[in-house]
């Protein structure tokens, strides 16, 4: 380390015991070193004091809102009801539009045995993509439901939702119009976690979300 690096590391308390004692001996002989230590400490105090008020400010709502479903713990029954009552109108409207618009061969949503299922590119993405993969459709979290079936929270250009494996199909258990969170900003990217979907996923989940290795194993075993 250079002298200035030593002075800095000493000022920050980063030198081990022996190096610190050795540096103190030199500092007693070389006043410039003591001055350098003092300057480093002063700068540290200056910067740390200047930015400290930011951490003391109340966190803006738009940030806490992204975590809100977890901030106010609701009993599972309540949470589900909040989800359905608040979203029922919008959700049924979304479903109507989706089935009307996309319920045709090749679209992301189809109806099979009177159930809403993923189809086309969405089904392919749910079959193959890992949560770490980029793409028009993103898988946000994969988990096993209480019935052991694999479920995946996804975000696609047309619709966000939770799909669970039923036989060889992905049944759509929750759906929301893409970007329904209403938090569009220049930085918002397709595929952000929708807090309401994450809350719904949490209710459905048995245990923890799949880690990357478990997710890969489940995919390679074709989600059986």
């Amino acid at each position: 380390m250079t002298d200035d690096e030593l002075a800095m590391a000493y000022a920050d308390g980063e030198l081990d015991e022996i190096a610190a004692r050795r540096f103190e001996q030199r500092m007693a002989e070389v006043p410039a070193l003591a001055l350098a230590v003092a300057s480093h400490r002063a700068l540290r105090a200056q910067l740390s004091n200047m930015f400290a008020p930011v951490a003391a400010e109340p966190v803006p709502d738009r940030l806490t809102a992204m975590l809100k479903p977890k901030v106010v713990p609701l009993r599972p029954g309540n949470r589900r009801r909040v989800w359905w009552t608040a979203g029922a109108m919008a959700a049924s409207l979304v479903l109507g539009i989706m089935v009307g618009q996309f319920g045709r061969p090749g679209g992301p949503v189809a109806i099979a045995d009177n159930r809403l299922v993923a189809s086309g590119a969405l089904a392919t993405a749910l079959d193959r993509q890992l949560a770490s993969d980029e793409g028009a459709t993103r898988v946000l979290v994969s988990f096993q439901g209480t019935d052991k079936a694999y479920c995946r929270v996804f975000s696609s250009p047309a619709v966000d939702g939770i799909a669970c494996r039923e036989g060889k199909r992905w049944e759509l258990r929750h759906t929301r119009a893409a970007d329904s969170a209403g938090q569009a900003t220049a930085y918002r990217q397709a595929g952000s976690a929708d807090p309401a979907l994450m809350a719904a996923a949490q209710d459905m989940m048995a245990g923890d979300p799949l880690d990357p290795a478990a997710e890969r194993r489940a995919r390679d075993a074709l989600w059986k």
Partner: protein
Amino acid sequence: MGLDAFEDQLLAMLPRLRRFARSLSHDAADAEDLAQAALEKALKARAQWQPGTRMDSWMYRIMRNTWIDTVRSRTRAAETFLPEAAGAGIADESSRIEVQVGAREIHAAMNALPDEQREAVALVLVEGLAYKEAAEVLDVPIGTLTSRLVRGRQALMARLGEAA
């Protein structure tokens, strides 16, 4: 680890994340956007977080990478912008002005640093990380962190010394 614990830990980190964002971004509005973008990334990448590891290091890394990806590529048009929070909470009028001038100079000096020095300064001097922790967040050897940090500090001292 369940989702609640993940969310709770993130929530507890928000004040520090905002501070880190502010020390990286010259502009207060950019800093808020950065904090939001980093939080979105973290929520999206939650499956990649390894329970039992330190969430703050993980989150600082996400924010730093987000900053590299987005804010850095922006034009730095806001050179003369003074963040509104600078000097806030200082009651005495004369010292308030003094503090504001100081804050403006520090912001300008931070903004003039090369990104790799600024992120090292922000992590160690503002966030209070140990060298080893900061090196891990930035994914560089500790010697590299030390040399970036000392160069950043020398540059800041030189600029602030001139201004004083």
